[in-house]
């Protein structure tokens, strides 16, 4: 145990630099997946057949490709096509695209859960499609969508570790590097696990808060 604390103090600064990158990757890809997911979901519910079909196929393609393959594609294949991305850019882009499919399905479910009478009431006072979405449907859908959105946040935090496969020096990769140079596997990976857990717990509490609030009304 004394050894653990000693190592912990020594490795903490390096692991914290990994934590910083983990947070950057998570927040970056969370924002991207939210924007893309909203766009896919809007296309799905637009009532325009072509848009809805494009969105549905896109979602299925994205869902059918493992995140790690998507990352490899962005990082190793795109340069052949003349687009060079930094490891961090590729990680955020890859995770953002991968998760946009889940976000989209979540958002769509929330939008479609809104009572049709609400949409008719909005139309009957002259609201167009976009105004109906903005003023009536989306504000009510948010409440439904938030708990699963929180779960996606937790999954993304953990899946950001996949960025290590394309050399992003986030928490998992920093841990691996220290472990392979010091052979202190147990202490290092215990620390890494504890640090992920520490970041997850606030999110888990947030989801619980969302669920309580959604259950109220």
């Amino acid at each position, binding site marked *: 145990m004394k050894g653990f604390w000693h190592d912990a103090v020594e490795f903490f600064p390096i692991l914290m630099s990994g934590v910083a990158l983990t947070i950057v990757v998570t927040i970056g890809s969370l924002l991207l997946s939210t924007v893309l997911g909203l766009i896919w979901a809007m296309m799905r519910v637009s009532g325009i057949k072509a848009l809805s079909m494009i969105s549905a196929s896109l979602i299925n393609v994205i869902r059918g490709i493992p995140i790690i393959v998507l990352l490899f594609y962005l990082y190793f294949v795109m340069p052949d096509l003349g687009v060079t991305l930094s490891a961090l850019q590729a990680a955020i882009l890859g995770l953002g695209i991968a998760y946009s499919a889940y976000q989209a399905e979540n958002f769509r479910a929330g939008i479609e859960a809104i009572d049709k*009478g609400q949409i008719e009431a909005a139309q009957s006072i002259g609201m*167009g499609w976009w105004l109906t979405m903005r003023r009536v449907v989306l504000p*009510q859908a948010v409440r439904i969508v938030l708990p699963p959105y929180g779960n996606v946040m937790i999954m993304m935090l953990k899946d950001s570790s996949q960025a290590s496969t394309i050399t992003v020096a986030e928490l998992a990769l920093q841990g691996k590097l220290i472990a392979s140079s010091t052979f202190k596997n147990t202490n290092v990976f215990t620390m890494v696990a504890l640090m992920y857990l520490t970041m997850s717990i606030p999110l888990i509490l947030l989801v619980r808060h969302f669920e309580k609030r959604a259950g109220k009304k």
Partner: protein
Amino acid sequence: MIELSDVHKSFGANEVLKGITASVQKGEVVCVIGPSGSGKSTILRCINGLESYERGEISIEGLKVDRDAPSIVKVRTQVSMVFQRFNLFPHRTVLENVIEGPLYVKKEPRAQALERGRALLAQVGLAEKADAHPPQLSGGQQQRVAIARALAMQPKAILFDEPTSALDPELVGDVLGVMRKLADDGMTMVVVTHEMGFARDVADRVLFIDGGVIVEQGPAKALLNQPQHPRTQDFLRRVLHPL
């Protein structure tokens, strides 16, 4: 003011409107009665462009009602709708519900919309509920807010789709009272209803619809007291003397 000529409407293979021709004059109160499934709600929904129709034409003061044309917004701001299940926006307060259309569709200044919103709530007897949320109100109160919301658009006519059918019996009177006052003030109203007392006392004219056609129409008292068509007679007997 509202003109329907030979309007046909089908849901799949089921033809619900089989050639409806009718007109509503300015200031007139027309009640539409008939058995459920007769197509009476569908007529209202077509007038407001919530449903499309396949044949015939509906126009509001000469403006054609076409669900897919940009002009539909103009139709809807001139003809408001009150729904059976109120359809208030639960995430906004009562007052916000009322000013939503004036503020965001008609782009009125906020102060003006608020002032009229409060006046309308007072008119329907709910001034003190302005800051409550709809789910906190009784059905009758919610429906009166819905009427205020419809009035806030300063419409030329209001369509009522069975406005009291979802209410507890003791709350029906409040809503009908507000509607009667509107009628007295000269509002053009088309009311789909099962309230025969309201139809008799308030309506200028009654249309009896069955099987997607207008079976009989005429002045309210004459039609309700001395129906000519056997189907009208049969329907009224069932409604007025269910036992």
